């Protein structure tokens, strides 16, 4: 019983939940989006600041469960400071992990703390929690930069 739960609630996830990184809404920003998970009501308002093709800041105000809050914190850690195309590649890598139903082995070099979410992929009801802010970030970033710059490195 506890093992199954521990696979979901990795220490890394609980740490990010209790102490989220990059929280709060900051200026400057080029795009702000508001995304909701209609089934549970979780919400995130997220801003992206892109400077010279680099994701310079991601700031957010979010309400949600431990998985969604931790995922937001990890996502901000991963994309801030990265060129937009590289960040989009990380987004794609995380999406693949989440949609893999627990069969995808995550690459720690790319996803860092994000590998802790591998267990979430086995709980279909929680995948949306983990993806909420990632989808919001992609939406905001797409709005913030010209379309040709958002193409992920892998695609």
């Amino acid at each position, binding site marked *: *019983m506890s093992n199954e739960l521990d696979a*979901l609630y990795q220490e890394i996830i*609980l740490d990010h939940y209790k102490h989220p990184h990059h929280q709060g809404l900051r200026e400057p920003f080029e795009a702000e989006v508001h995304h909701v998970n209609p089934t*549970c009501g*979780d919400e995130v308002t997220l801003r992206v600041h892109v400077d010279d093709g680099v994701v310079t800041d991601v700031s957010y105000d979010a309400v*949600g*469960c*431990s998985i969604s809050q931790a995922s937001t914190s990890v996502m901000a850690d991963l994309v801030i400071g990265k060129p937009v195309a590289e960040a989009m590649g990380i987004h794609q890598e995380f999406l693949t992990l989440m949609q893999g139903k627990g069969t995808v082995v995550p690459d720690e070099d790319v996803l860092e703390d994000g590998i802790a979410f591998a267990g979430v992929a086995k709980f279909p009801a929680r995948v949306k929690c983990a993806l909420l802010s990632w989808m919001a970030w992609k939406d905001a970033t797409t709005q913030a930069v010209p379309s040709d710059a958002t193409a992920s490195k892998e695609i």
Partner: protein
Amino acid sequence: MDGLLPELDVIRKDFPILERTFDNGQPLVYLDSANTSQKPQVVIDTMVDHLERHNANISRAMHQLGAESTEAFEGARDKVATFIGAPDRDEVIFTKNATESLNLVANTLAWATGDLAVGEGDEVVITEMEHHSNIVPWQLLTQRKGATLRWFGLTEDGRLDLSNLDELINERTKVVSLTWVSNMLGTINPITQIARRAHEVGAIVVVDASQAVPQLPVDVAASGADLLAFTGHKVVGPTGIGVLWGKRAVLDQLPPFHGGGEMIETVRMDISTYAGIPHKFEAGTPPIIEAIGLGAAVDYLGHIGMEAVHAHEQAITGYALEGLATVPGLKVLGPLEARERGGAISFEVEGVHPHDIAQVLDSRGIAVRAGHHCAKPAHARFGVQSSTRMSSYLYTTPSEIDALVEGLEYTRSYFKLG
């Protein structure tokens, strides 16, 4: 404990799913009956028997099976009429679910002429504790017709604020639509009192009885409702079948909803005339097996007795409220006394999100609902995004409530809350 159903063990044996265990050997503790109830063997058997031995379309097949199927389907209508005290069995309309019943009313009102017509300057009154399915159809109606949507607010303890009853329901009010029992707060609303005021000003009263019909003895004629909606799957029946009951005088005035087979009297290429109720509102082949299953379900509940079911729910709800009060940091949303309350209890636990609570409980075999329970405005009223909801039914035992309380304590320790 006073009020519990006698022979609760026997009742539990009627519901095969309650024997279910999960991979880790945990028995099921099903506390999500306000979401959907479990089904007794008699409902399952009735539906299977019909499929195996009597299946045919109704009202259009000139053969023995067609006659048997029609008889079973119309027999189910009789059973539902008896169960809810409908004065006339033709006042029972079969729909897909309560949502469709409410949309049927809101849509046909948009097309109605005469006394029931809703137009500019008219008002529709709902409440802040409605399920989304009793909010959105009225938003659509009032937006389309240039009417105004108004609503009762809620008191701190989760009841309707009736202090402005006479102002809110006034000469401009055409429709008052409200829930009998809240699916989130559990509150039982004084629908008869509100209906009296609505009728004084000539408004019609629509009651969402989705949580009431499963839990209370319901007498539609005495309730004050002109129209009343509920769904089959919450009264130990199957999904896919709902009911709209309405007074004949009102239903006769409403225009048809869906056009198609079975709802007509005669059809020419340029114009048609329509069948009388109930068929006027039942276009197309209905969910026959589901209606027959619902008939078996209300027979089952009628046999146990809704007074006894209600007393059981009150006993379990009181026990649950006591148990939940012992969990540190837990706050119940809604009335804190079992009296005047249905069997759904929504709560928050400080420091743990409802999703996480439900996940930990699920790992112990305990099924609850987490989220906004399709009642976002009611959550917003109490300043919360979402909540965890336990909901009991006639098969719920005190030991299942104990398991919930222990599970919540375990959840707090899992998330390292002092």
